[in-house]
């Protein structure tokens, strides 16, 4: 199996005042295509930072992130954006739908960015698939949190990304709604065969993934993957 994501010796430090704050310290792991992984750890342990770096939203201080065979550190901001367009899907804790776009338009954005035709039809199909077929033209403010996150899932999957990052996708939802969104996430994942990397506090959710990477104070303290897979 090939690796979609290869993280080596990843370190991220932030300057706060005149001190350097190390948020991630020599993080190393590889993620094989089609697998599901959960990143867990206490608040402030660097999960979001790690996810952002893996998706090329931020620059590393040291180490490498290789996404689908391409080392991100040599790419410019825009080149990384083009890479995301092709490979990456994103689900946000606070949904991050664009308030001025209707549900169907929000879902269509990744396809439109790629210049594909029929974006609206595919978006409508997918919204129907997530149970929002009758809410196509509603704006985010007109949707409940659970509904918004379902739109978010549709948007993340529409271009069949090779890898999908989700940062506490159910963190802002109540238990029942969260469970429903979870189910949908894994269903869509199975259907598309996407590699899934999700960050969560929820041990049950983490348990549904094939692998669990535990962070503490910016370092990997546990990784349930087979030793061969680990490196």
């Amino acid at each position, binding site marked *: 199996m090939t690796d979609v994501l290869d993280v080596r010796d990843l370190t991220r430090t932030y300057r706060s005042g005149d001190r350097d704050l190390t948020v991630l310290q020599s993080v190393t792991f590889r993620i094989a295509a089609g697998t599901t992984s959960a990143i867990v750890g206490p608040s402030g342990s660097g999960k*979001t930072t790690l*996810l*952002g770096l893996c*998706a090329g*939203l*931020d620059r590393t201080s040291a180490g490498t992130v290789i996404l689908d065979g391409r080392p991100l550190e040599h790419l410019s*901001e*825009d080149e990384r*954006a*083009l*890479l*995301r*367009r*092709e490979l*990456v899907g*994103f689900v*946000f*804790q606070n949904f*991050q*739908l*664009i*308030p*001025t*776009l209707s549900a169907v*338009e929000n879902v269509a*954005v*990744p396809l*439109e*960015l*790629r*210049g594909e035709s029929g974006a609206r039809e595919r978006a409508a199909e997918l919204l129907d698939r997530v149970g929002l077929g009758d809410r196509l033209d509603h704006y985010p*403010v007109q949707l409940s949190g659970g509904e918004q996150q379902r739109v978010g899932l549709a*948007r993340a999957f529409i271009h069949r990304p090779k890898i999908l990052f989700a*940062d506490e996708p159910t963190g802002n939802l109540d238990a029942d709604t969260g469970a429903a969104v979870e189910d949908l996430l894994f269903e869509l994942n199975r259907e598309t065969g996407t590699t899934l990397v999700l960050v969560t506090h929820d041990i049950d959710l983490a348990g549904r993934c094939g692998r669990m990477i535990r962070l503490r104070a910016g370092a990997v303290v546990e990784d349930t993957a087979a030793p061969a897979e680990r490196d």
Partner: protein
Amino acid sequence: MWVLRMAWRDSRGFRQRLLLYTSAIAIGIAALTALRGLSHAMEEGVAQQASELLGADLEVESDLPFSATAEALFDSLGGRRARMVETLSMVLLPESGGTRLSEVRAIRGNWPFYGELRSDPPTAALSFRQGREALVDNGLLLQYEAEVGDSIKVGRVTFRIAGRLLGIPGETAVRTDVRPPVLIPYEYLAQTELVQYGSRIEYKALFRFDDDRDVQDLAERIKERLSRSDPDIDVDTARDRQQRLGRTIRNLDRFLGLGGFIALLLGAVGVASAIHAYVEQKLESVAVLRSLGATGGQALRIYLLQAGVLGLIGSTAGAIAGAAVLLTLPALIADFLPGTVRVSPSLGTALEGISIGTSIALLFAARPLLAVRSASPLLAIRASYESGLRAGDRVWRGLVVVLAAGGAYLLARLLAGRPDHALFFTAGTAVALMLLALSAHLLRGSVRRFFPRSLSYVTRQGLANLYRPHNQTLLLMVSLGLGTFLVATLYTAQNSVLAHISQLGGEAQPNVVLFDIQSDQTEGVRQLVQQMEMPVLQLVPVVSMHIGAIGGVPVDSLGDQGGWALRREYRSTYRSELADSEALVGGTWHGDTVQAAVSLEAGVAQRLGVSVGDSLTFDVQGMPLTVVVGSLRSVDWQRIMPNFLCVFSPGVLEAAPQFHVLVTRGDSPEARALLQRRLVEKYPNVSAIDLDLILRTVDDILDRVAALVRFMALFSVATGVVVLIASVSASRFQRVRESALLRTLGASQQQVQRMLLVEYAALGTLAGLTGLLLALGGGWGLARFVFEVTFAPAWDWLAGALLVVPLLTILVGLFGSRGVARVPPLEVLRRAG
């Protein structure tokens, strides 16, 4: 394509507000296109009416009657001819008893050859020439409520008023206000006895040639041919006149252009700050787009496109409004230009305005929009923001600022037409805006510094709103302040000038000057004044002369040295005492010495390059007179009193052609009017100027200038109001939310309302104060350096302005925030969650 679609979708929910911002640009473009249209119209008008400016192709003018040589030359020229003699003289309207210093013109021939005398009734313009009739300036008739058919006494002759004179080709309303023209037939000139020894007369010969001869060349030849026999003459052609008028128009143009320029810049700054606030709300959406794979360039293009469309809509609306404004403009400048200006909105000007507006909007929006390009996608996953600009972006930002400044310069260049003026324009406006911003900043700073902590919660909260993030306090203070500044500066300067003039005629100061008194009339006039129980403060002879040679070198071979001082007419006197208004600054006062000496005013001596002991030769109406410069004097000109550049020792000029000037004082306007009436009856050639006349004339002229400045200020104030409305609505959502929160926590609607009131009152007061403070400075500068009078601000008016500006701000502000305090809190909080 995607960018286009995204730009459209992304503007949802913001369109109304964005449109509001476009009106800031619209106002500037309206001003600009209207003014551009006007300047085209003026240029065309001048070109079309060129020959009408003079009413003839050629005009020969002299202060002395034409010589026989000149007359012979005129006869040989052919074409159509007319003659005119002009003199300033008192006229009397016997029915009302009113008298007024007027410009009497005796006309022979069918002048004007081009254009027409406009009169009411229209036939009077021709018919008055047939009998003992006069065509009298309408303003003069209105002043004394005289009617057509009444009579008017000019010199010794009483004419029937044939009609009201409404316009003379080539003459401006401002000019006819100062010296109302009275036209009479040439045949009666001699009988009026206005043409006397020593009085100031202009003789004119006017020509129209219907062949295609080179008039410019002819003018040169005439000047050359008559240089001996008639050294005094001036030859003027329609083209000379047109060129001179062209200069006036360019000045007017530049003045008006400045108004459009400032309004447009204010609008552009408004758009820039609006975009800044807008972008900040959009950064999260941008971050999401970027994490979904949109490039920085794509994101930037989405918003540039929005800004461009915004500019396009704004400028199109502005161009349309400008066409409407254009139609009202001719009335505004009519008084300063001869003839009529016909305006018609043109597509070219509109397109020009639209492209200017769109580019300026884009240029000024670009800088805040750069934030979109460098927005980090990280914003999508956490609320922290990367404030650090990348090096590349810093270069871009600098480039954009330079581009915007360059755009402003190019605009100025277009309006001013000359690079140096454009630079002055741009730099001047920048300095003015910076000064305004600086004083606004200082004022705001001191409010913050001395923040009244003891005030009620509501008041403090209202004041604190001035510093809320993304506030537009500074911009509002600058634009509202600028409008206040323009109007107030002008008013202050006007007030100073008028105060100065009325104070000139204060207690015991002379306030009536009688001139053109013939030598044999002096005793009679003196008695008449004394009979009226008015003092004779001064009675001095006046002799007109020119400079013939300096140190024996004739003026003609002196070249341009001395310039105006060398060629001007000197109205001199002779006496043995220094006057009150004079002080000796060099040499010895000639007193009663018998040696022929002249005392020169120090400034003129310097210009001529002569000093004590040098010899000067004057040409006293044909007779050479050589004297020694005996002394130099300084003169206080700020009196209603004849003052002289040259004062001769007694015994030199007694025999020269001369007239006399008498200075007196009448305490009441009635007494002054009565004196003038008696005088006109008995000595019709004697003219009078009194303080009332000067005051009225100056006031009139300043009023007309004021109308122009008010027009410019209007655009600035309008932009300020629009920016105010727009910024109120921009922060509306935030306010609604705050209001809901406050009310959830227990504040009453009334308290919320009062907070808004305090905020706008403070904003308006600060803006007004900024403008007025600067206006005091500007008015002081104008009074001191331009008008050279004591600074006398109209405090009551300024206090009034300090009330009106905040009131306007409160009105607009509260109107924009209406309903903010009434939205049910629950609804708001749900939306926010």
